[in-house]
């Protein structure tokens, strides 16, 4: 047995990805597949309506709220950076700003829907535009809501000092999800407000 050459030292370092990041990446892949189908349906039915209202008549481009959501990705990066360097005060501040920006975006969606429903009389039942618009934007908004809830819990625990720099990794995984939600909005915005309007 002693004559066997040690060709491969068994203690060679095995580089494996961490499981939280891996799982979140997989979840993002699965979610992307879901969003792809809804985007395809939106593009497929765009312009096929015989009855109004049509997108160009009723949709207003939500520039301000889009800037809010996209800039939140910047602030969450600051928050990640802060917790990695154990600056908990900065973390709480950037984290709270991220949540506020997310909630502002949701407020924008809510006012937009209110206008569409009560002034333009467009519901999910009205025509194909209504069906595809509310499903796609609603699917995205529900993801923003889930993200906001998760981040609110994190904020509450951070204020109670339950979230500590030991949780930097968990924060990073949650931030991945938020970046994904933002990236999806780039696609939804392009399709709904630029290409098909």
């Amino acid at each position: 047995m002693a004559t066997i050459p040690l060709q491969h030292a068994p203690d060679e370092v095995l580089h494996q990805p961490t499981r939280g990041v891996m799982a979140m990446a997989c979840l993002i892949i699965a979610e992307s597949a879901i969003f792809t189908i809804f985007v395809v349906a939106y593009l497929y039915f765009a312009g096929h309506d015989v009855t109004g209202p049509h997108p160009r008549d009723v949709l207003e481009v939500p520039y301000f709220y889009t800037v809010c959501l996209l800039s939140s990705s910047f602030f969450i990066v600051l928050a990640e950076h802060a917790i990695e360097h154990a600056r908990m005060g900065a973390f709480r501040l950037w984290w709270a700003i991220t949540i506020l920006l997310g909630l502002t975006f949701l407020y924008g969606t809510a006012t937009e829907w209110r206008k569409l429903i009560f002034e333009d009389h467009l519901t999910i039942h009205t025509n194909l535009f209504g069906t595809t618009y509310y499903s796609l934007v609603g699917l995205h908004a529900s993801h923003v809501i889930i993200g906001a809830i998760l981040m609110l819990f994190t904020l509450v625990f951070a204020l109670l000092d339950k979230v500590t720099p030991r949780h930097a990794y968990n924060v990073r995984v949650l931030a991945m999800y938020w970046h994904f939600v933002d990236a999806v909005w780039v696609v939804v915005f392009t399709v709904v407000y630029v290409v098909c309007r």
Partner: protein
Amino acid sequence: MSTESMPVPGTGAVEAGIDHTPATYERGTWLEWIHGWIVTVDHKRLGILYMLYALVFLLVAGVEALMIRIQLAIPHNTFVSPFAFNRLFTMHGTTMVFLVGMPILFGFGNYLVPLMIGARDMAFPRLNAFSFWMSAFGGILLYYSFIGGVGLAGTGSAPDVAWFAYAPLTEKAFSPGHTVDYWAVAIIASGIGSIGTSINIIATVFCMRCKGMTLMRIPLLPWLYATMSFLALLALGPLTAAQGMLMIDRYLGGHFFDTQAGGSAILWAHFFWIFGHPEVYVLVLPAFAFANEIIPVFSRKAIFGYSAMVAASVGIAFISLGVWAHHMFTIGMTSFGNAFFTLSTMLVSIPTGIKTFNWLATIWGGRIRFTTPMLFSIAFLSQWVIAGLTGIMLSVSAWNWQLHNSYFVVAHFHYVLVGAILFMIFAAFYYWYPKMTGRMMNKTLGRWHFWLMVIGFHLTFDLMHFPGLLGMPRQIYTYEPDRGWNTLNFLVTVGAFIQAIAVLIFAFNLVYSYFYGDEAGPDPWDAWTLEWATASPPPPYNFADEPSVASRRPLWDLKHPEDPDSAFE
């Protein structure tokens, strides 16, 4: 080398790398015992739960298949009503794909993947339990529709829209009851479970490997399960999205698939088959995975072309994402579409051909042991080739126009699902049952099971091609006696009953061997992968010491220190 690469011998109950500590769970009263199984997060227990759950539904869907075959045995039969017949084939298809195929394969994955990569559990044990119970909830919901739904024209209760549930039949106007709702929600629920397990398997394979297990030393089974899980992630999303759209149509008055308001029924077909075709590979890749482990062990040779096998599996997964519309040639596509999907479908045969030849090359010149798992594997090989050949025939769009929705198609996909996948599932049961229970499965009963299964399978599914060629469409509840289908249909039914007897022998063998089977010991097959390096059944923590590997066949290295694989890597 061996002392460094495997757990140190002689420390307590660990001897020569094998932990002889018996697998003791707290027994307690029977109530505590059941409670233990319900709240468990142990990957081995969840794997067994998946398998038992799937076996129950295998019997249920098998009975549904037998009722379909009794109805079709003779022309103008009145065994079941046309409405009941619609429900039977819908439930048979949905059950076999979502409640038998997926869970039984995820069950084996759950049990084997952590053991084979030397991990103590899956990456996310609680997610694992959540996924199982979501799947179980989906299955119960689907069968609850027998009590809770009202079908087409108020005539029945279970879903009756076929397993692909083409729109606009599923729209509220044509399916007013709740059966389609049960169907859609059941599939969303079990889909969430499957996505959770897929995420878990990928994270386990890529993040939880033991010392020394580089990517190219992972056994082929975990490799293929990771590939299959990746494919499941991409395939189940579209299905979930399409079911969501269907629910929006049915409950909120949307118009996705509502043709009267400009919606598109064809879009449903596209979305369903974007899921549906990769799903075939989600089911068949684990069958390949079993073959990759079983064939080398009983040929006494290392697998031929390991890296080609990995590449071919990943290749199959990629190509299978671009072939879905071969289910839809008769829907009327452009000639470019027809040509594209014909060619992309034919392309799948290249990586699958590589796999087939690699298995043959593994057997070639080997010292073959004809054990029950090996018998099933050999039958799998030849049946898989035939199934692939009829698949290539059907991929030609001009040929497909003639045979679409005929019994030729039914025969083809049952050749894949039964001839390849179910046969390999049986092989896997015979191969890993000793690991799971500590006892061998009875060999005589195994032979009876195998030969009856082969005879019944070929009687049913070889002959089923011919009524299809003679023009018999699928999903008809009866037929005229002057079409020349009578004898063929009768023999197909006889074959179905022979298979049913074989499956009952198998079920009996599972129970019988649990109590009266021979003691298996940790490594009854003289195999080479890490699951055989622990006791049978394994203790809750799998390995007393974290294993460390230096080659693809760590147990070969341990048993043959004079000629280890690691010297050749």
